[in-house]
């Protein structure tokens, strides 16, 4: 750790990854007590109730959609791809931080990941779930999704076209969802065993015991477990990079100006990590205060996440500049028109400049160590990024489509109340699932937190006393 590089008391010394004075027992007791308690904070009920209210709105919107069809949305020619794909890409992107924290930072041996990985993985799962809703409902006929999306033997003897990026997307996203699920569950097994042993209610003991599957912490089991977990992280790393790359192919392989750009894959992946870290911080900062987790999620974590956000944000800004530069440098009249329409005289130019405010200007505050250490400021910056990353997809999708090659087909796009109810409904699903998760499962990996203590690493290998 870097703490020895500076003299004592220096402001540059990073905060510890775990507060002082903890033992194996205190970590176990504190993290299990969050769940195995009868006292649920009032804020938990209020937030879950708000989330649940949005879910009700979502149910109404989807029921009406299935009843009437996609005509209830603002989606229409020429903007044939609108809210559903904007929301899909936004949610998938948010999911990426979880896998980055749990897999890539594990491979880089970043010990600060330990306090946030479980929680971020859960966030990934729920974000992918919210994303998956949109491809299923976007035709208004969700049963069609079965044979349009998945290759299964059907009575019509037809198969999807694997040369289409949309089918690659199905494979990428469903693999991502399933691998995230088993990665998350594998990490949970030892902690479920702790819950089984700590719970006093016989029914809880049984439920957590079924999840723990008889885990008993044998040295042989741990050896295989660590081996499998490390390789799983190695498999998840190219997976997470592939997912948003494939999502970007949905656009980049089309010939629409504003979509047809080679910068898209890295630019989308960076944007995904950027949006994901913003969402992890958006959820971490309130939960850390609500459950008094300042010993486990220290300022070191907040600062490090803010720094990752700053860096990936700058990569995203590089993507914006590259898009603009190549639009001009291509010399193509349609590309140049698209740029001027997007930034300058188009009716949606406001959304481009709002996007730059949210994703470029405001996050520059994170250069300041003083501001990175103020959770209120970090939270506010994250809210800007959450909105900004949604606007980014709005700009890419709607402004590229609404004025295409033929001026006679130009048309404005206006979302309806049903578009918004569906979008906010998925936010309600996300918030509700996150809050149910923190209530019934350990939101911080207990066994990995134990390994952060110095006494978890034996000083001498064998020998007698």
């Amino acid at each position: 750790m870097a703490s020895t590089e500076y003299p004592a008391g220096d402001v540059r010394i990073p905060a510890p990854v775990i507060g002082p004075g903890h033992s194996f027992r205190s970590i176990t007791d504190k993290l299990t007590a969050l769940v195995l308690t009868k006292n649920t904070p009032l804020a938990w009920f209020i937030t879950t109730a708000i989330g649940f209210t949005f879910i009700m709105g979502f149910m109404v919107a989807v029921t009406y959609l299935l009843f009437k069809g996609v005509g209830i949305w603002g989606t229409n020619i020429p903007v044939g791809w609108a809210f559903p794909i904007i929301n899909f890409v936004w949610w998938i992107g948010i999911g990426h931080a979880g896998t980055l924290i749990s897999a890539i930072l594990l491979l880089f041996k970043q010990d600060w990941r330990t306090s946030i990985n479980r929680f971020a993985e859960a966030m990934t799962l729920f974000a992918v779930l919210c994303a998956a809703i949109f491809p299923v409902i976007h035709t208004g006929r969700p049963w069609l999704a079965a044979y349009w999306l998945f290759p299964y033997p059907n009575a019509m003897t037809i198969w999807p076209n694997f040369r289409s990026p949309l089918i690659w997307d199905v494979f990428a996203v469903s693999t991502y969802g399933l691998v995230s699920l088993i990665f998350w569950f594998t990490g949970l097994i030892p902690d479920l065993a702790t819950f089984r042993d700590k719970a006093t209610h016989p029914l809880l003991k049984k439920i957590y015991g079924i999840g723990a599957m008889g885990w008993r912490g044998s040295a042989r089991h741990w050896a295989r477990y660590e081996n499998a977990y490390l390789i799983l992280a190695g498999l998840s790393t190219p997976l997470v990079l592939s997912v948003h790359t494939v999502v970007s192919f949905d656009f980049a392989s089309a010939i629409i100006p504003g979509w047809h750009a080679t910068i898209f894959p890295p630019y989308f992946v960076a944007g995904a990590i950027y949006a994901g870290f913003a969402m992890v911080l958006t959820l971490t900062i309130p939960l850390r205060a609500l459950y008094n987790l300042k010993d486990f999620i220290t300022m070191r974590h907040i600062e490090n996440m803010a720094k990752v956000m700053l860096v990936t944000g700058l990569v995203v800004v590089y993507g914006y500049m590259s898009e603009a530069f190549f639009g001009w440098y291509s010399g193509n009249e349609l590309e140049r028109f698209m740029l001027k329409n997007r930034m300058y005289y188009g009716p949606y130019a406001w959304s481009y400049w709002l996007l730059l405010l949210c994703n470029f200007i405001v996050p520059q505050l994170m250069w300041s160590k003083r501001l990175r250490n103020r959770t209120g400021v970090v939270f506010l910056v994250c809210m800007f990024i959450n909105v900004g990353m949604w606007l980014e997809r709005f700009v890419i999708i709607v402004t590229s489509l609404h004025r295409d090659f033929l001026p006679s087909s130009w048309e404005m796009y206006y979302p309806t109340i049903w578009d918004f109810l569906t979008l906010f409904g998925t936010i309600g699903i996300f918030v509700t699932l996150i809050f149910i998760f923190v209530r019934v499962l350990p939101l911080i990996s207990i066994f990995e937190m134990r390994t952060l203590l110095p006494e978890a690493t034996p000083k001498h290998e064998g020998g007698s006393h």
Partner: protein
Amino acid sequence: MATASSSVELHGLMAEFDSADTLLAAATAVGKAGYTKTDAYSPFPIHGLAEAIGFKEKIVPKIILAGGLTGLLAGAGLEYWTQVIAYPMNIAGRPFWAWGAYIPPAFETTILFGSFAAVIGMLALNGLPRPYHPVFNAPRFSMASQDKFFLVIEAADPKFSLDATRAFLAGLHPREVVDVAE
């Protein structure tokens, strides 16, 4: 065996330790003393502990490789069969076997099968799920998932003798040594 007359079968002797340090030292001593049917239990992975009790297996990576290759063949095979044999579609004159376009799905199935092989393989080798195991009969064993460390020498070990093994374990500075019923 010395306790053949006792009413319950003996699974083994369990020593409890307070720290990862003493457990690792004890496991090393037990291995050196020639015991082979032993196991160590800890609330988190301890580097070198499995080796100390003689664990050398390296099967998990091979299972994952096999799973990944199966996924690759399954994905590519699905694409070949559906796109070339079962339902060839002429779209803009592109070849039926446009292998470049078939890389992303085959890549994803490789990762998918490899990941499932990792988790299912690890659990199967560990013999999980397993609802019953004798070590849970030890009254303080629930601490193994919290903050205590345990070492078991099984009665099935060829070197096991109740009194001598108990005395040997007691010499390794445990908190206590208890009998574990089968």
